């Protein structure tokens, strides 16, 4: 068995014949890294002596048929191997091209794309290439939403504090303000850590559910990237006072379902169940779903004039 990696992504372990066939068909590249038992380190497939004739045959075949995705090889790997035309659908989100677009421009374009054209966004999103850029996007978007919401909440509460403190001594007032300020400060400092940890746990739970449903056609990395991008964009709704969190929650779940479906190339039903299942198993989720259903039924009844 030969283990094949492309960049940060493991494409899997394949028998030698399948790798040979994949090289000839253009599904595996010379730059892909390979490893088999007995080797100390990974090396490019082009440096495997047993595949030299296959690479030569692949490069010298003028009328070779267009390469097909191999069985068991993640689709993006096959898409990259197929050349620019078939790689176009996975051209990447603007955030993945932030070096050329600029940091702020790429962020705004990505948020706009995920919120307004989620199907297109998650269709072009790369499902490989590491988790760093998706994590950064999720942490930035989530932190902006959470920090603004925290500051807004503190501003509202400060009105109550001011009234309460006016009835106490100046020393007690100073103490109260200092403690409250310190708590807000630590909450803001800890927000990015909470978000990063939360994203990993959420993506892990959804991916396990997807594995249970047989819908995980790509590695964990693909699920993480989709959920992280979805969260980074939708969490910005938390900026809106009072009802922003509810919009972020509902829109986030919808974006998660679309993101999982497109990134894992699975049907939307499995994606929806994979996203909802962790919430249902965990008690809080049932409460939230009941609340959402209650609000929905209430709105419907009002609409119908009951």
């Amino acid at each position, binding site marked *: *068995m030969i*283990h094949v*990696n492309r*960049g*940060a*992504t*493991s494409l*899997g*372990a394949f028998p030698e014949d399948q790798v040979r066939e994949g090289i000839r068909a253009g599904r595996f590249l010379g730059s892909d*890294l390979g*490893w088999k*038992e007995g080797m*100390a*380190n*990974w090396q490019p497939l082009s440096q495997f002596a047993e595949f030299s004739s296959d690479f030569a045959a692949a490069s010298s075949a003028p009328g070779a048929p267009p390469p097909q995705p191999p069985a068991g090889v993640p689709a993006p790997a096959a898409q990259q191997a197929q050349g620019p035309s078939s790689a176009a659908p996975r051209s990447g989100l603007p955030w993945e091209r932030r070096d050329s677009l600029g940091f702020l421009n790429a962020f705004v374009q990505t948020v706009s794309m995920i919120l307004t054209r989620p199907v297109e966004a998650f269709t072009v999103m790369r499902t490989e290439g*590491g*988790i760093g850029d998706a994590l950064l996007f999720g942490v930035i978007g989530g932190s902006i939403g959470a920090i603004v919401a925290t500051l807004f909440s503190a501003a509202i509460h400060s009105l109550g504090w001011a009234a309460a403190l006016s009835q106490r001594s100046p020393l007690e007032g100073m103490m109260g303000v200092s403690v409250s300020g310190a708590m807000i400060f630590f909450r803001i400092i800890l927000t990015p*850590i*909470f978000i990063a*940890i939360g994203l*990993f*746990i959420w993506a892990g739970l959804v991916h396990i559910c997807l*594995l*249970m449903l*047989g819908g995980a056609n790509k590695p*964990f*990395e693909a699920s993480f990237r989709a959920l992280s991008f979805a969260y980074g964009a939708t969490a910005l709704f938390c900026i809106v006072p009072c009802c922003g969190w509810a919009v972020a929650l509902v829109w986030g779940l919808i974006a998660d379902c679309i993101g999982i479906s497109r990134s894992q190339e699975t049907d939307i039903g499995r994606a929806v169940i994979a996203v909802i299942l962790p919430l249902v*198993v*965990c*008690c*809080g989720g*049932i*409460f939230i779903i*009941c609340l959402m259903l209650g609000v929905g039924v209430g709105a419907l009844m009002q609409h119908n004039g009951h």
Partner: protein
Amino acid sequence: MRIVRRPLAPGENDYELIWFCVTLVCLLLAMGWFAIGLPWPHCAFLALTGHPCVTCGATRCALAFFHANFLVAWKWNPLVFIVLCGLSIFDAYAFFVLIFRVPRLRLIQFSIAEKSLLRGLVIVLVLANWIYLLSRPPGVF
């Protein structure tokens, strides 16, 4: 299904490092949470229906587990106890491979039958756990 030991490829996602950090930070945050006396999480399902959910007792199970009261932890929630055991074993393994920079363990070549068996096993475990929790005397949770 096979277990192989292989080195990490250059630039490959280091999942041992990622999940070790995630579990460690979670543990530290949980310790901090309880140390400063913040409120325990409450189960909305239990409050609404009067019956425990699948994860009811998880907090008390974790507390007992980390105080080495394993039997007590098992009684609170067997499924969470198994998960905590699995996480502890994984963290010990991750710590070892990260410190000593040794090849990583990977599970490969799952057959369809093995995947189905694993899925069935997880479903049975979750359901058995819930039945156990529902069978406990009222007022325990």
